[in-house]
């Protein structure tokens, strides 16, 4: 979910309308945005649309909202001039980072808002839409210091060196990857390739090494910059052209004029046979039965209304007797199915204008079968005066294993936030003893229980994990003993109508008085926790406990 920095004044200028606080909130709902925080004129806006890069700038939000509030309608047209800039693509990049799309923007007015928005949009596209630069990486350059034509070609490490951005001395690609801040983050995207992708001009001046870093010579856009060269590289033409067009639209919305570049591909397996002029601003079409609108929305709308609502969502619309055909910008990569169009129609209509309908369905509700058993077990424990506690499933090997003198494998997290929560509990008992350890200053006797899920590695279980819901009771005072906990066991099992059997067995965390319990065929344990285990938790009182699976 991208978070955008937006200047309210800038936004209002681009929309052509002023908003009060509530009005601003309402129009932002059209673009699935929420104001996260306000600092004077500066807004932080959360955009929930993770598949619409065209919205991730003030220009993009304003463009969509202008149509939603009726100031414009249909697809926004962008005029593209010809720049006569040729870009030559070498086939040695076909297996490394094959595609490039470029454009020239002239007459841009670079000011504070412009730079912030341009850098922000570039970053959001690369990180989210471009999957952290893998699928799309964008370079922006001062066009006036470059001499066309432009070359996109692969070089071996010993064939090229240049000064990367924010650096003073020339470096080889391998050095950039190991030493430069950006190289360390994005280097893996080209590491191990035979050649490194390089964008350079006719004078062999390096502009960038996509998708990692620009050169210091061309890669700085300042307030003096008037004309921009934009390139996007990646693995799919559709993705990089979308990224390029989104950048161009935003720059053009601020007064820049778009000029195309001619991309000349070498012969290759996946390369187009003829040149491409980018940006192309292609459109796509999708059609569906008229009846689908009512089926999905429950609204009866005439053709004119449907057309108006969709035009406000920037579709060009044709409706005949049976079908609705909509045309939309190819940047709308989120449109996969007619339902995506219908949602846009509903948003234009306004969710809160729709009358909610009651669902008439004669169905019977029910809870999971085992819930009654779990809850009766709780009732039994409450009846003998125990306090229920809740502990987390996530816990540590130290509590479940080491402190309980158990050397076993657990269901384990690969990427824990902290080792304190690195495994999922196998037993409740260590968690309850840990609970007692945290409450030594509370009045004794302490009598607690938990009914909770436990996980165990088990090759025969589905997904290799056996999940049970266990009951654990723990009693603690200066003189609690085996008889006390056995009384609890017997009373609880009697109430639940469960047959229980006790067999003398040793457990590493129990003292002499302990036993294995078999409740309806499922094994558990009961007894007095031994001194060395209690010492691990810093407990001086006695603890007697029982645990067994309920299901």
């Amino acid at each position, binding site marked *: 979910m991208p978070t955008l920095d937006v200047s309210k004044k800038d936004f209002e200028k681009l929309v052509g309308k002023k908003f009060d606080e509530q009005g601003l909130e309402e129009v932002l709902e059209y673009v699935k945005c929420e104001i996260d925080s306000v600092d004077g004129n500066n807004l932080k806006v959360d955009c929930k649309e993770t598949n619409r890069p065209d919205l991730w700038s003030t220009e993009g939000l304003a463009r969509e909202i202008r149509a939603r509030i009726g100031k414009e309608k249909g697809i926004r047209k962008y005029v593209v001039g010809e720049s006569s800039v040729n870009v030559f693509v070498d086939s040695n990049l076909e297996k490394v980072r094959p595609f490039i799309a470029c454009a020239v923007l002239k007459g841009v007015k670079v000011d504070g808002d412009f730079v912030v928005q341009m850098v922000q949009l570039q970053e959001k596209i690369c990180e989210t839409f471009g999957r952290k630069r893998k699928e799309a990486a964008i370079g922006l350059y001062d066009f006036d210091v470059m001499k066309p034509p432009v070359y996109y070609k692969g070089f071996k490490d010993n064939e090229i060196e240049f000064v990367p951005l924010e650096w003073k001395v020339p470096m080889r690609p391998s050095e950039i990857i190991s030493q430069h801040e950006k190289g360390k983050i994005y280097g893996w995207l080209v590491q191990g390739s035979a050649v490194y992708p390089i964008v350079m001009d006719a004078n062999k001046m390096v502009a960038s090494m996509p998708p990692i870093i620009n050169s210091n010579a061309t890669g700085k856009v300042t307030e003096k910059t008037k004309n921009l060269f934009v390139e996007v590289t990646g693995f799919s033409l559709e993705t990089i052209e979308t990224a390029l067009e989104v950048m161009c639209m935003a720059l053009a919305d601020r007064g820049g004029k778009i000029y195309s570049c001619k991309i000349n591909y070498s012969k290759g397996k996946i390369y187009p046979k003829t040149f491409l002029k980018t940006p192309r601003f292609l459109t796509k079409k999708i059609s569906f039965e008229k009846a689908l609108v009512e089926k999905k929305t*429950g609204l009866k709308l005439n053709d004119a209304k449907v057309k108006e609502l969709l035009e406000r969502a920037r579709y060009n619309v044709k409706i005949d007797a049976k079908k609705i055909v909509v045309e939309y910008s190819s940047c709308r990569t989120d449109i996969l199915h007619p339902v995506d169009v219908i949602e846009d129609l509903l948003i234009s209509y306004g969710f809160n204008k729709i009358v909610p309908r009651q669902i008439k369905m004669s169905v019977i509700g029910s809870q999971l079968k085992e819930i009654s058993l779990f809850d009766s077990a709780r009732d039994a424990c*409450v009846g003998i005066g125990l306090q229920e506690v809740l502990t987390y499933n996530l816990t540590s090997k130290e509590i479940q294993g080491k402190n309980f003198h158990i050397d076993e494998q657990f*269901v384990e997290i690969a990427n824990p936030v902290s080792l304190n929560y690195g495994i999922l509990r196998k037993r409740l008992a260590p968690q309850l003893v840990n609970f007692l350890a945290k409450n030594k200053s509370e009045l004794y006797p302490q009598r607690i229980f938990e009914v909770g*899920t436990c996980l165990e590695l088990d090759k025969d279980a589905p997904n290799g*994990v056996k999940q049970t819901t266990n009951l654990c009771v723990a009693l603690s005072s200066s003189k609690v003993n085996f008889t006390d906990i056995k009384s609890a066991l017997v009373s609880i099992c009697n109430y639940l109508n469960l047959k229980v059997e006790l067999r003398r067995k040793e457990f590493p965390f129990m003292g002499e008085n302990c036993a294995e319990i078999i409740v309806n065929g499922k094994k558990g344990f009961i007894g007095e926790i031994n001194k060395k285990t209690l010492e691990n938790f810093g407990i001086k009182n006695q603890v007697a406990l029982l645990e067994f699976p309920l299901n």
Partner: protein
Amino acid sequence: MAGKTGDLGRIRELSDIERKAILGIGDSEKSFEEIASEAALSIDSVRRACAWLAEKGFAKISETRSEKLFLTAAGKTALEKGMPENIFLEVLTKLGGKAGFKDLMEESKLDVQEFNAALGINKKKAFITIVNGVIEETGVAKSQETFEEQNLLESISEGKKVEALELFKRGLVEKKEFIERKISITNSGKAAREILSTQKVSREFDVEAPVPELFLGKKAPYVQFLNQIRQKLVALGFKEMNAPLIVPEFYNFDVLFQPQNHPARAWTDTYHLKQPRFGVLPSAEKVKAVKAAHENGGVSASTGWRYNWNEEIAKRLMPAAHGTAHSARQLVEGVEMPRKYFAIARCFRPDVLDATHLIEFNQLEGFIVGDDLNFGHLLGMLEEFAVEIAGAKKVKFIPDYYPFTEPSVQLSAKHPEMGWVEFAGAGMFRPEMLKNLGIKGEAIAWGIGIDRLAMFKLGTRDIRDLFSENLGYLRKAKAVML
């Protein structure tokens, strides 16, 4: 009642222990210890009983305060090893009567504070001079004089009364205050004793007096809350689904049409298992259907995400990150038509535990399948939830985004006390999911983050209280009523 019956009434209210104590006081002043041995009671009981008797006017407690000097830890060291200023001089003599600061400090083994004190005292008494950073004996020191403080320390340690202001200032000696309490009987005490020793007076209780607290056995407040939520859903006609903790990514993401390179599937946003690593997928037919949905939309009218879907990624195991994973499994296993489903799902996300984030939390999750369901029904269902579950007075629907629903909507509900709250996310399951899994009709899906409502019902602002580790808090917790 009790007060109105006069002296006899007040005597009746006396507890057994108070009665024993009053008989033990006798006619002369006594200490607690004396009464305790007289009445065969513990000293604590006597203290408490006498306090009550004094409060009720049957006895009088007199207090005598006195002060006594004690050696502090530093004082004890000085007594044992000698005063720092003496050590200072002795070592200085040993060093030939002349030494630098550093040498003297090291050799004397005094810490900085002691050394500075010793230096000051010896200089004041003119036992030493300091010339150009060198300390030199003056020869003024006489052995008798230097032992004055040592003798004082000894006297204090023996409990003798002495004046020792200087030692007190230097932190070698401390004062402790003693309060000696003596109990004597009052006239009404004597009258009460007379009655108690001659008649049988049964005890009468002060109905307004405080009593010791009992700790009730009870369910955890959060469990009470979840049980009532469950009852609510069952009453609304929903059938509960299984919600296991561990699921393959297939159910958490793939069935829900989240492309495998989607940023929300990043390593940092969800947990993954180290062991076991891979789980089991359902029948080949269902897996093929999900694969087709991703790659080309399958039998739905969708283009799909157009990439190569990888079965191995779908097999990776993880603790469920959202409740919709369980709706996904139900869709794969098959649904009855029409039907309402729900789950109370434990969810895991890599957050750091604080007042607003849990490391594991519960989501209330579900969907309704039927032939003729549309967006209006979805809003109707949400409105019902807002009123029935949250007790909301007003609702607002806001456009939202989920990878698995289209259209998607957020429900904001206006609670009479909490104000506007983001209460639920919902939408209509995408046709890529339903059509490819062979489900006819429509499904409206919803998820409610119930933990915020739980916090409100439990009257807490700290979400960690839902899993409170504080027995005192749990013992005091009130019943939860939805």
